[in-house]
């Protein structure tokens, strides 16, 4: 597999990995009447026939069933934080997408190599691995007061409803639904106050920033692992890897932000503006800022670490040149 392919792969992985980000590119334009429209494809010459989302004002509140509240027996813990926030459940989707993106395309390599890759990915990119890294990172620097405040918020009905929606949205099958939803936004754009509220939420929580940093972390990790097995003349120095990661981060930031907005519009459809405003208020609080910053760090570090170790194993087991093999032709019976 060439280095270029690896980098493209890395970006794809991170885009698909973050729960709020659709892998599809999102376009935004303003029509003659000043209305802002979002879509997953450029503005078509004529009207798009796509299923229209229900108007926000009449949307039915249909969140996934909130998890059963665990019995509280002592001070809040990092495990409880991960459980209540829904992140523990979301990590399953993240792991599966990461592994899927690191998979070679069908026929790209021999059956034997493919089996080796499958075995490594199943072991190295698992929910348990990522969860353990996130948990350990969060445990490193626990601020008891802020942790308690955050858990108290997460136990509130609104936060539980939000967590359930985010978990539902993180399932791989949702990607396609978001694509369809995005297409429908052209005919039925969201109200401006809703967009403003979600942009504010993204600004304060740093969700798009986390996605962009994951892109950079995956790029960095893959480059490091591949570089370590390359001949000296072809390997990249740490500074070069850093520059490349930063360059890619800058390049994808804006499209991530756009995709983030569409994804949030989809995920929180059933929330009232007042509920979203509450979410924004918590995110802007001291505890909310602490929680978002710690989660950001833990997620970026965990995904980067898992990808680096998995990629290192993959290129050791199947050297990069064996990732570009042409598909085998079916032997002819006449031969």
């Amino acid at each position: 597999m060439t280095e270029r392919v690896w980098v493209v792969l890395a970006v794809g992985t991170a885009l698909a990995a973050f729960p709020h980000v659709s892998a599809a590119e999102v376009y935004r334009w303003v029509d003659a009447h000043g209305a802002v429209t979002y879509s997953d494809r450029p503005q078509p010459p004529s009207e798009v026939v796509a299923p229209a989302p229900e108007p926000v004002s009449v949307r039915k509140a249909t969140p996934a069933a909130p998890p059963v509240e665990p019995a509280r027996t002592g001070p809040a813990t990092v495990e409880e934080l991960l459980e209540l926030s829904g992140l523990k459940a979301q990590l399953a989707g993240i792991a599966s997408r990461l592994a899927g993106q690191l998979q070679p395309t069908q026929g790209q390599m021999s059956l034997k190599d493919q089996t080796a890759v499958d075995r490594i990915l199943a072991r190295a990119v698992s929910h348990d691995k990522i969860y353990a890294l996130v948990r350990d990172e969060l445990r490193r620097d626990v601020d008891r007061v802020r942790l308690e405040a955050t858990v108290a918020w997460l136990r509130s009905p609104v936060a539980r409803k939000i967590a359930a929606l985010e978990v539902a949205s993180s399932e791989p099958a949702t990607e396609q639904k978001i694509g369809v939803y995005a297409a429908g936004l052209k005919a039925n754009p969201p109200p401006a106050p809703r967009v403003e509220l979600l942009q504010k939420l993204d600004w304060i929580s740093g969700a798009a920033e986390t996605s962009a940093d994951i892109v950079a972390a995956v790029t960095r990790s893959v480059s490091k692992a591949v570089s370590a097995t390359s001949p000296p003349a072809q390997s990249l120095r740490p500074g070069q890897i850093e520059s490349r990661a930063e360059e890619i981060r800058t390049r994808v930031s804006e499209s991530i932000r756009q995709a983030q907005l569409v994804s949030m519009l989809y995920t929180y459809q059933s929330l009232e503006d007042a509920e979203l405003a509450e979410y924004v208020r918590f995110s802007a609080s001291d505890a909310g800022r602490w929680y978002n910053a710690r989660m950001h760090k833990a997620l970026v570090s965990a995904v980067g670490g898992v990808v680096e170790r998995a990629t290192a194993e993959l290129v050791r087991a199947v050297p990069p040149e064996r990732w570009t093999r042409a598909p085998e032709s079916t032997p002819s019976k006449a031969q």
Partner: protein
Amino acid sequence: MKAGMWAIALTLLLAPAAAAQQRPAVAPPSGHLERAQAEFQAGRYAEALEEARRAADSAPTSVRALTARASMAEFLGEFNEARTFYDRAVALAPDDPGVIYHTASFAVRVGEYDRALGLLDRLLALHPRHVRWLFQWAPRVAQAWLLRENPSLEHIVQIKIDILTEKGDLEQARTLARAYAIVKADQNYCGEAQAKQQASAGRDEIFKAFRLATLGQPDSADCIWWYGQWLSDEGYVRLGRLMVLEGTRVTPLAGNKESGTRYVRIRLGGDRDVPKRAEQLFLIARQRYLRDGDLEGATRLFDEVIRLAPAFARPYNYRAMIAWDLGDREGALGWLQRGIQADPDSWRTHRNLGKLLDAVERYPEAETHLKKAVALFTDDAGGRLALARVLYAQGKYDEFVKETRGAVGFLANWNDQVPEVRAFLEKFERWGPGAALPPAPDPHVIIGWNYD
């Protein structure tokens, strides 16, 4: 000197000897020189030097081989080796103009001016008597023709002008340039140079035009100042300093005088001496790092520069860059701190250290150095944006807004709108502090202040 020019020089050196030259008959070393040339043209300079070494080792009395080795060693900053092999070549072919010319150029490069002048006299002595007489005594009107007919004479004059300029005797350099019709009275060299710059002519062409302006129009303060800044950017800090000081002396405007004085203090190390050899090694080290990716060779040369000129801030910055490149963050910080100890007024070093400390999230220290950078150079909009970022990271939002507005306002005058910074500020003012740190782009709006 650019690689292309060196390729030409090397080709000349490797070409068969001129008929007029008398040198010992030595069989050229088979293949090594051709391979050296091929490696050089392919940009594999270290390999080219190795081949040139083999050529000289296998034919120690071949002037071509010795000179090729000397040239390659000079190109890569191996000055002791270059000196040894130029000397051997001159000893073997004392009347070879090509060898003498290259040896003289090398002597200028390492600041051995008297030796260079002696070699130029030898070069002159190789010309026929009547040519020498005309060169010495003919009126100015005949000199242009004479130099056109004898290009080697123009080389002699140009090198002598450079020597006089580098020694700080600009008046004598100008006299010489006029005497040999290198510049003519009543010609607007400065206007021509500025026109070339506006027309985006080639870099070398613009550079030569400003040099002529400096020689031909002693009152053209703006052009002299511009030439000095260009030299500084390129790394010719000695000549750059002389030119900036000259432009500062000549300008009638008090503001420009203040600016010129500050420029020398914060960008060119004030009156800290940088020996010519150190300056040239620095230039080559930078090329070996940035152009060739030769970290090992560059590191060795930068270390030599620091040994020769411990108060010269630039090599510390490059040692830091290499350390960072190798993933050694603490090492990079250490080199920059040493750079500041060497020259506490080095704007670039404070700026680099501030940005590096920001990258490793040591914000209070970053603030100290970025504040110093901005105090040293108030028009540094990129430094101000970097300062705004570390202020924001520490929750000093009022100061963040003040610095950001200052930078954005300044950049608007230069038609650089930094839209990402404006968008961030707008969101901050609408929604309060966000999770991400503000962007701190480094706009390149001021010529002469963005390269070190």
